[in-house]
C-alpha cells in the first residue's frame, strides 16, 4: 500500500467535512429537507473516507493510529463523528451537524499542524496493551466532551421561546444531549485516562502517579467534570449554566490535550 494513501484519504475527508459544514449551515438557514439529507450524505462520505484513512494508516504503521498527537486527534475526531451519527440516527436531528461539522473541521485543522510522520515502530514505552486501552478510552471520552460542548454552544445560540419557528432543537433536548454526553464521557475518562493510565504507568515507569503535567491536567479535568456532574445531579447547574460549563470543560480538555507540547514531561509525544 502506498505510504501516502492514508494522507490522501484523510485530506479528502477534511474537504468533505468542510463541504458538509457548509451544507448543514445552509440547511439550518433555509430548512430544506433535501439539503439536510445531502449534508448528511456528504458527512457520511467524509466519515467513510476518514475511517478508510485511519485504517490505511493502521496498516501502514502496523499499529492502531494512537501513538502521536496527530493520530490521537484523528481518532478523537472520528469518535466525535461516530457519536454524531449515532445521535442523529437515534433522535433524527440533522441540524446538530451545524455544530459537530465545524468542530470536526477545527480538530482536523489542529491535527494538520502537528507532525504527521508515520512510524512503524512504537517507542518502547508504548508497546503495551494498556496503551490501546488508555488512549482509545481517553479519545472516546474527549470525543463525548466535544459533543457536550457542541450541544452547549447550540443551547446558547438558540433563542428562547421561538417555538415552532425555531429550527434548532429544543432546550430540553439539548440539555439531555449535554447530560448524556457527559455521562458517557465521564466513566470512559475515569476508567481509560486515569485508572488504565495509572496502572500502565506502574508497569512502564514503576509509579502509578508522577505528577507529570499531563497527568495533573487529566486530574484537573476529571475533578472539573466530577464537580459538574455533582452540581448537575443536585439540580444546581442546569440549562444555560450546564451549557456554559460543558464549553468550559472542553477548554480545559484542550489545554490538557495540547499541554504536553508546552509543558513537556513524561507524556511528551508529538
Amino acid at each position, binding site marked *: 500500500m502506498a505510504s501516502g494513501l492514508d494522507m490522501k484519504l484523510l485530506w479528502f475527508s477534511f474537504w468533505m467535512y468542510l463541504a458538509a459544514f457548509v451544507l448543514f449551515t445552509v440547511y439550518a438557514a433555509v430548512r430544506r429537507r433535501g439539503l439536510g439529507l445531502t449534508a448528511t450524505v456528504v458527512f457520511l462520505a467524509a466519515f467513510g473516507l476518514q475511517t478508510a484513512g485511519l485504517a490505511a494508516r493502521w496498516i501502514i504503521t502496523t499499529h492502531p493510529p494512537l501513538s502521536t498527537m496527530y493520530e490521537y486527534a484523528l481518532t478523537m475526531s472520528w469518535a466525535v463523528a461516530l457519536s454524531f451519527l449515532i445521535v442523529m440516527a437515534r433522535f433524527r436531528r440533522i441540524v446538530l451537524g451545524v455544530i459537530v461539522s465545524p468542530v470536526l473541521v477545527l480538530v482536523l485543522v489542529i491535527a494538520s499542524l502537528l507532525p504527521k510522520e508515520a*512510524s*512503524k*515502530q512504537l*517507542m*518502547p*514505552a508504548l*508497546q*503495551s496493551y*494498556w496503551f490501546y486501552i488508555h488512549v482509545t478510552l481517553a479519545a472516546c471520552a474527549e470525543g463525548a466532551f466535544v459533543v457536550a460542548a457542541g450541544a452547549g454552544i447550540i443551547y446558547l445560540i438558540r433563542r428562547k421561546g421561538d417555538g415552532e419557528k425555531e429550527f434548532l432543537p429544543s432546550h*430540553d*433536548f439539548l440539555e*439531555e444531549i449535554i*447530560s*448524556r454526553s457527559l*455521562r*458517557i464521557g*465521564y*466513566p470512559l475518562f*475515569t*476508567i481509560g485516562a486515569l*485508572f488504565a493510565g*495509572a*496502572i500502565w504507568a*506502574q*508497569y*512502564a*515507569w*514503576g*509509579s*502509578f*502517579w508522577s*505528577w507529570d*503535567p499531563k497527568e*495533573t*491536567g487529566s*486530574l*484537573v479535568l476529571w*475533578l*472539573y467534570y*466530577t*464537580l459538574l456532574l*455533582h*452540581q448537575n445531579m*443536585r439540580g*444546581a447547574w442546569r440549562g444555560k449554566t450546564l451549557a456554559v460549563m460543558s464549553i468550559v470543560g472542553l477548554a480545559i480538555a484542550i489545554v490538557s490535550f495540547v499541554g504536553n507540547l*508546552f*509543558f513537556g514531561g513524561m507524556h511528551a509525544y508529538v
Partner: protein
Amino acid sequence: MNEKRKGAGEGFISYRFAVAVIAVLFGASTAGWIATELVPPDFLEREELYRLAWGTTTAKLVGILRLYDPFHSSWYRLVLALFFVVLLLCVVTRWRRLAIGSWRAVPPESADELRKKGFSFELSWRLLESGAGGPKDPLVRYAEQFGRAEHIEAERLRGHFSCIAALLKKRGFSIVSRADASGIRFAASSGRWRSPGTMLFHIGVLVITIGGVIGSFGGWREMMFVRVGSSAPLPRDSALTLRVDDFEIVTTESLEIKDFISTLSILDARGDVVVSGAVEVNRPMKAGRCRIYQSEYTIDENEFERSRIRYSLRDASRRGTFDLVPGSSARVADSTVDVTAVRFIPDFRMGPDGPFSASAFPRNPALEVEVAYAGETERGWLFLYHSDFNKPFAAPVDLVLDRIQPVYYTGLEVSANPGSGVLFVGFAAATLGLLAMYLCNPRVVKGAAGARALVVAGTEYRWKASFEREFAALREEIRTEIGHRGCS
C-alpha cells in the same frame, strides 16, 4: 445544644459541602498545575538567583507555599485530607440509603402523593375498559369530567393489576405491591444497581486515596545506572546485589529503537543467584520487596569497550587493522605513526560550541584520535558510518573506524510501593461501580389501583426526555391492553 451539633454535623457532610470540597480540590489542583509550569523545580538550589529576579517577597512566597513542588506541599495535602474525610463521611452516612434503602422501591402511601408528581396520569376503569372508543363515548367523557363514581369489584381490580404488572415486567421492572381495603398500591423499579454502583465507586475512590497515601509514605523509588558486567547493591536492601549480565538495544532495520533489554541477576549475601531474568520496558522484574524497571540507558562519552581501526600506510601501500582501547596508544604496524584514542561520541553532532552527542544511542558514532608522527601531533574525527568525513591526516596514514563497542550503563528504576495492592482493589471497585452507575438506567413507576381509577406516576428517572417517551408508551399500553384484550 445537641440540635446545634447535629445541624453542624449534617452541614459538614451535606451534598452541598461535598461539592464545595470538590471545587476546592479542583482549584488547588489547577493552582498546582499552573505553579509547576511557572516555578522551576530547581528553585531551592538557585533560590538566590530567583530572589534577585523575582524580588524577595515573591521568592519568599514561593518558598513558603512550596510552589516549586506544590503537590507535596502541606496546603495541598490539607486539601486532599479534607477531600478524604468528607468522602469518608459521605460514604459512612449514606451507605444504608444507597446500598440497601434504594434497592427496592416502596409502594406509595396513597394515590394523592402520586398526583403531585411531574409524570403522572389518572384513568378511570370505565375509560380503560371502554378501549379505543372510550374518549369518544359521551357517557365515559361525562364520568371522567364530573368524577362519577364507577366502582369495580375486587376480582376485576386484581385482574387489571396483574395485567399492568405483566406490562411493567415486560419492560424490565420488578414490582412490589400492597393490597388493602382501598385497593392495590404498587412500586415498579428498574436499574436499581445504580445506587449500589454509586456507593461502590465512592468506596473505590476512597480506597485509591488510601493506597496513594500508603504508597506516598511507605513507598520509594530510586534510579540506578549500572555498567554491563558490574554489580551494585539493591537500594534499601543491603542483603541483595544486582548484577547486569547483559544489555541490548533492539532496533529495526532503519535503526528505530524497538526495546531495551537488560539481563539481570540478583545475588544474595553469599553471592548465590536468587533470581535472574530479562527486564524490558513494560516488563518489570520482582526482586525481594521491590520491582526493577527498565527505564533508560546511557553511555559514558569517555568510555568504550574497544575499537578496531583499519589503516592504510600511503608510502608502503600496506593495509591492516589494529585495536584501540580508551586512553591508550597504538603504533600503526612497523611505522613511526602512533594513534591515541581521545574522545568517543555515540551520536555525533556539530554545535556552535563544538561536537556533542545528540543522544546516548550510537546513531552516528565518532572517535577522536590523536596522530603523532615525526614530532608533530594532530587530532581528527573518525566516523563509523560516514568515513567520507574522516579527517585526512598529514601523517602518511589513512585511518578508518571499522568497529566500536560503547560501554552501556543500563538505567534501572527500583521501586517499592506497599500501597499497590490497595490501589488495584480501589481501581477494580471504582470501575465496577462506574459501570453499574452508567450502564443502569434507574426508573421507578408507582401506582395506586383503587376501586374507581388507576393513578400512575413516574417518581424516579435518569433521562427526562426518554423517560417521558417511555411513560407515554406505558400509558398507551395499559389503555390498549385493558381496553382491547380485557385482561380481567
